[in-house]
């Protein structure tokens, strides 16, 4: 009888099983002091996504993600000039094409038909452009802010007086303490013990995204970059602050430049029609050669020929010899390695005859010469960034290598596979240039790894899968 009573207890014993008890992970800041952290940079530091700066993007900004983790090893306050209200919700994108005071909202993904009536997710403005009055109101009195990330900033803007005025950069003007404050002054007002600096992307990106020479944006020369970057680090480290610095990803590995195909498949009948249409142009080139035999190589490169199967598109190239006097446009077919920007109108390619019957404007096209300018500038900047960081004993993030990994092999983390494919790759936001929230989380982990390695710290990383994905707007 006694034994039987005991038997009743056996299942109960099972319910109160001892649980395993793994020790807490070691957490330490190592030799670095994160008490007052400041982040200096451009849109990538500000939290820009999908063509706009929104409150949600700011809350998930790269330095905010990092600061949340630093806070787990030592108390760190991190304040940002978060955009309030409706403008914060819709997002603020600035464009010279919009009337003064009007801002463009962030892109959202909507189901929309294309010109062939195929419905699919497409990036569109979330709302109509709207008055950004609430955005333009200064919050400088609430500073200093720990996030001195200013969308659009180049290395030359870090120490530029007047950049904090509305004529300079409205994003900075909004939170600068006065219009004459520079970005570095805004940063130093925090008396930082630790900083992050990621700058230089816009020194080549503006040129790239606007199609190179046609866009009217220039590339900062490597020697100028060297002086300005070194001076910025001198300022940030002058009170003994430690920090982390990242290099510049090759802009041509981002979906903005790799999404739009540079050619199309056509039939023999279509090729025949196109070749007939371009026969006068090709004949005109031959006529020029008749007058000037030295023109033969350019004429060969310019002649437009279509065949059944895969063909590259026809583009405008203003670097070609101007033959408008002969009634010949400056057009040719895209060469291997050249790229089209994400802004190339998809429906014009699909249904408007762009690239075949009509030449694609040059501002959507990066020539091999333009690409060479871009990559040599990036290589030059990156040499400087690495040597400046290592010679000062700062942590260094090889963002360029990481983005290359993303665009070639892909990155798998927390069970999620990321690539640099537009939208479906998961790492980029809808503008094809800036990371998605999860993309920023991946980079934040790289920053934390670099800080841990350089300063002997044990800062926990983030779970990338716990950050939100893009949703379809309905």
């Amino acid at each position: 009888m006694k034994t039987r009573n005991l038997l009743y207890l056996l299942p109960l014993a099972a319910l109160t099983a001892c649980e395993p008890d793994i020790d807490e992970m070691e957490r330490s800041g190592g030799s670095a002091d994160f008490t007052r952290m400041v982040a200096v940079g451009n849109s990538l530091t500000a939290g820009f996504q999908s063509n706009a700066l929104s409150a949600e993007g700011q809350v998930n900004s790269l330095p905010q993600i990092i600061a949340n983790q630093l806070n787990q090893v030592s108390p760190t306050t991190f304040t940002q000039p978060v955009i309030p209200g409706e403008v914060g919700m819709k997002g603020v994108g600035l464009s010279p094409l919009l009337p003064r005071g009007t801002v463009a909202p962030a892109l959202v993904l909507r189901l929309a038909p294309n010109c062939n009536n195929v419905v699919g997710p497409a990036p569109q403005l979330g709302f109509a452009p709207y008055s950004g009055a609430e955005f333009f109101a200064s919050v400088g009195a609430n500073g200093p802010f720990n996030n001195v990330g200013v969308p659009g900033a180049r290395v030359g803007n870090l120490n530029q007086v007047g950049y904090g005025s509305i004529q300079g950069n409205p994003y900075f003007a909004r939170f600068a303490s006065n219009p004459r404050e520079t970005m570095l002054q805004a940063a130093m007002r925090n008396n930082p013990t630790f900083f992050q600096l990621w700058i230089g992307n816009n020194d080549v990106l503006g040129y790239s995204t606007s199609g190179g020479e046609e866009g009217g944006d220039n590339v900062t020369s490597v020697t100028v970059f060297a002086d300005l970057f070194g001076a910025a680090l001198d300022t940030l480290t002058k009170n003994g602050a430690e920090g982390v610095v990242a290099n510049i990803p090759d802009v041509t590995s981002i979906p903005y430049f790799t999404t739009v195909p540079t050619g199309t498949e056509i039939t023999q009948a279509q090729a025949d029609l196109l070749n007939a249409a371009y026969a006068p142009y090709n004949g005109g080139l031959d006529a020029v050669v008749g007058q000037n035999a030295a023109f033969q190589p350019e004429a060969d490169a310019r002649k437009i020929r279509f065949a059944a199967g895969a063909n590259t598109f026809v583009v405008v190239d203003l670097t070609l010899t101007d033959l408008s006097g002969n009634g010949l446009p400056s057009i040719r077919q895209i060469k291997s390695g050249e790229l089209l920007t994400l802004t190339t109108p998809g429906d014009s390619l699909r249904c408007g005859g762009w690239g075949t019957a009509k030449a694609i404007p040059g501002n959507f096209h990066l020539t091999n010469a333009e690409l060479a300018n871009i990559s040599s500038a990036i290589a030059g900047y990156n040499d400087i960034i690495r040597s400046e960081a290592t010679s000062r004993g700062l942590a260094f993030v090889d963002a360029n290598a990481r983005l290359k990994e993303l665009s070639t092999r892909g990155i798998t983390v927390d069970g999620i596979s990321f690539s640099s494919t537009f939208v479906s790759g998961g790492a980029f936001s809808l503008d094809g240039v800036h990371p998605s929230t999860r993309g920023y989380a991946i980079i934040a982990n790289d920053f934390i790894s670099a800080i841990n390695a350089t300063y002997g710290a044990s800062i926990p990383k983030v779970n990338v899968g716990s950050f939100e994905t893009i949703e379809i707007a309905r």
Partner: protein
Amino acid sequence: MKKLLLPLLGIIPLLSLAGGFQVNLQGTKQTGMGHLGTSFHLGASSTYFNPAMMGLDENKFSVEAGVNFISSSIQFRNGNTGVSEMTDNPIGTPFYLYATYKVSEKLSAGLAVYTPFGSSVVWGDDWSGKYLIQDISLSAIFIQPTLSYNISDKLRVGAGLAIVQGQVEINRALPVPIGNDATANLQGSTTAFGFNAGIHYDVSEKFSVGLTHRSKVDVELDEGEVDFTVDPALAAAFPDGRFSATLPLPGTTTLGLAYKVSDKLLISAEGSLVQWSDYESLDFDFETNTSSLTDSENPRNYEDAYIFRVGAQYSYSEMFDFRAGFYYDQSPIQDEFFNPETPNSDNIGITAGLSGHIGERFGFDASILYIIGTERESEYAPSGFGGTYASRSVITGVGLNYSF
């Protein structure tokens, strides 16, 4: 009996207790002494432990049944974030039923119903490894008609055909770039076949040896069903439908030795080789592929693993037997392929048990097993997910037996 039992057994949540997803709880008596039983007879449960020994039963008819209550927790400390998470596994209740019938002095027949494989791990819908696994429920019910034959007074053989009813259900979050709450539910069930064969030899009055082989069983799910929950815009890219997958249940070869130290004390030791290297990959072949839904290959690359057991039984009186045992169960999983779906590190088992006899015919058994899943830092490299794992389990078992 089959008809009655199958629906009942089908809903029993089982639990991963040994290397991989093997569950070694096939007899309350044996569990009490380290789950040893290949080389000495403890009743009708020999149908499972070593079919050759069925003829050693003194009775014409023996029947034995039992159930276990498994309480288990697995802890994971994320290698990136340092955050610890714990499973919320249901109480598992695997059970067994054995019957033997002595047809003649030499020939015996038996039937065994048991659950040597299973797993029920619930990490939760929103834990850090949700894209690898949220929860898994895996079970394999073996129904095994068996015959044994006494070749001589000392040598006997036995074998049974195992009819295996296997089923699996997996829930995982789906890592799509659009939409936060996408999930995939995969489930299927099938029937497969294997065998269980053994040989048993009395070297002397005191010393006996047993050897068994339980075959590999390939559970081939041809008619699995996958159900995706995704944003409606992605529904065409992730069509619900059928999938096929093969889950190998590995073969196990066991050599056991038993020695009667005295009339009261029996000691035994066993070594098992579990042929886990058959579990190379868990591949899902979807009937309808799209550019987003390609067939999924998930390397497992398990390695063969050993289990070593020692145990003793002490017959205290006519009424009571006491047992104790210990085992070491090696993990078949390599460090870079350690997946939270079946997160088994090296296990150490400590057991105790007792039996009571009521009259000539009736007996009851009880056992308790404490399993320490040793702490282990590993990752599943193909998914970039890892950390430190450890587990603890307490299993209580009760059994009844009746002979005449």
